């Protein structure tokens, strides 16, 4: 008997994702993004995202089935992100997944978005090795996890205490007039810049901060420091060296992210680091992570980029792991939980 076919629905932020897997085999990964609609606001507007999810829902389902070359009758289970994420956006997926599972008469697994990012790696060629530290960075979250068992034992080591890293990229890009989304815009601008020309502060890396926030992140102070630096230049009537500012800012973000992730691996004696989340698309982050992982003797895993950004395939993959382990389905009365803790893999 072949592994069960699971359809996963993801609507926690601004991507409507529908993925279909057969066990650990990826059959389809279709993503409709409302990114363009957020451009004029310079950041994700929750209500705009939620409206877009509703419109994208059935077209995305249709396309996923076509790409996977399966019919509704082939689906053995449905999985959905129940949190964490934007409440109104999550509710679209939760409402849809419950109704879809009911109409198909199939079990429904409600899963954790962050653990889903780790679960995406089971779809890679090489088998996911555990335990692993996972660094998940996007516009919605910046979290460092210790994963001993994908469906049973996930621990939150640290997370951002203010802005998500992706959010900081968006805000600084707006400040520099570079457009949206901020990640690629900063990357382009930084290409000709000197990352050492301006040294911006690294949040929560001072000894006194490390005591309480060893694995936590903070990007709000960095964003303000960049704004101050730019305003000072402008007030003095001088040109702003955009490339250097972008490069210096990006270096500060990448430095803190990789420093803390590698520290976790070293401290905990876990020689594996997995990256996930949309910010992984940032080339400089991947470069520095690779350098530091090599230096520390840590094996670095980066799933394919379309499995790093928010997507339905990772949710389907985690659902398939739960089903394969014989877990009971989630029932029908769970809520969308915008602050679902990572320790809750399945709701």
């Amino acid at each position, binding site marked *: 008997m072949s592994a069960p076919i699971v359809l996963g629905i993801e609507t926690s932020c601004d991507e409507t994702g529908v993925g279909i897997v057969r066990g650990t085999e990826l059959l389809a990964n279709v993503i409709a993004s409302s990114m363009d609609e957020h451009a004029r*606001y*310079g*950041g994700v*507007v*929750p*209500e*705009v995202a*939620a*409206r877009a*999810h*509703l419109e994208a*829902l*059935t077209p995305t*389902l*249709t396309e996923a089935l076509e790409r996977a070359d399966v019919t*509704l009758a082939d689906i053995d289970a449905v999985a959905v992100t129940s949190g964490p994420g934007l*409440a*109104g956006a*999550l*509710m*679209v*997926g*939760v*409402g*849809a*997944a*419950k*109704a*879809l*599972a*009911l*109409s*198909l*008469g199939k079990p429904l697994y409600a899963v954790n978005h962050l653990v889903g990012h780790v679960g995406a790696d089971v779809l890679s060629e090489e088998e996911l090795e555990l335990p692993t530290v996972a660094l998940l960075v996007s516009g919605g979250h910046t979290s460092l996890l210790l994963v001993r068992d994908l469906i049973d034992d996930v621990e939150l080591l640290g997370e951002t205490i203010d802005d998500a890293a992706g959010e900081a990229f968006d*805000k600084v890009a*707006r*400040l520099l007039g570079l457009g949206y989304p901020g990640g690629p815009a900063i990357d382009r601008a930084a290409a000709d810049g000197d990352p050492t020309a301006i040294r911006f502060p690294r949040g929560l890396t001072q000894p006194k901060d490390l005591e309480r926030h060893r694995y936590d992140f903070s990007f709000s102070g960095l964003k*303000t420091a960049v*704004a*101050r630096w730019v*305003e*000072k230049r402008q007030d003095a009537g001088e040109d702003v060296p955009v490339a250097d500012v972008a490069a210096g800012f990006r270096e500060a973000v990448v430095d803190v992210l990789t420093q803390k992730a590698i520290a976790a691996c070293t401290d905990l004696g876990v020689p594996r680091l997995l990256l996930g989340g949309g910010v992984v698309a940032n080339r400089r982050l991947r470069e520095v992570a690779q350098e530091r992982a090599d230096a520390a003797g840590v094996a670095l895993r980066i799933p394919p980029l379309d499995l790093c950004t928010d997507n339905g395939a990772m949710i389907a993959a985690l659902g398939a792991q739960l089903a394969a382990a014989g877990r009971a389905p989630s*029932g*029908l*009365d*769970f*809520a*969308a939980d915008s602050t679902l803790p990572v320790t809750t893999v399945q709701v």
Partner: protein
Amino acid sequence: MLLAIDTSAGTSVAVVDRDAGVLAELSTDDTRRHAEVIGPFIAQALEQADVTAQRLSAVAVGTGPGPFTGLRVGLAAARAFAFGAGKPVVHVVSHDAIAATLTAPALVVTDARRRELYWTAYDGLDADGLPIRVDGPGLAKPDELPTGRERHDAATVSAAALGLLAEATWAAGRDFASSEPLYLRSPDVTISAATTGGRRVTQ
């Protein structure tokens, strides 16, 4: 036979049939638990009516007006259920389901939060028994509501009433409502000056 869903106020799910009437209805006026109750309500409605998804001819859903977050849960559920069952979705203006029992001219009013109200004006029922919508739906402050019709406030929308109205609309060969959700507010009303940026950090 229809599965009918409305989440423009509380959550209401029903199974109705043109000949047999209301076979099941589950409702709550709780305006904070749409995503939780939609699943159990659909399951229970089908079970009480003793029907499978395959025996339904369509799914009817209310398009509002109603507060965004809740309204979308019903629309998402209706579309996904219909998708899974391979059935069409038919759309009904939620206020029409309230007006379906009002024979005299009336202004149907529901809560839009933020000290505003949703309203729709009706002139009774036509020869097919369908409500005659003459103005709206609209959004207004309480002291700016259209005048001239008796005000009819509603806290809930019955999915059974909505489903029966859909059956009557179908029987009369009339058009259903547009699939467009009646949000009546632009999505950026919640954005504060702080997030739209441009502010200095130094004074």
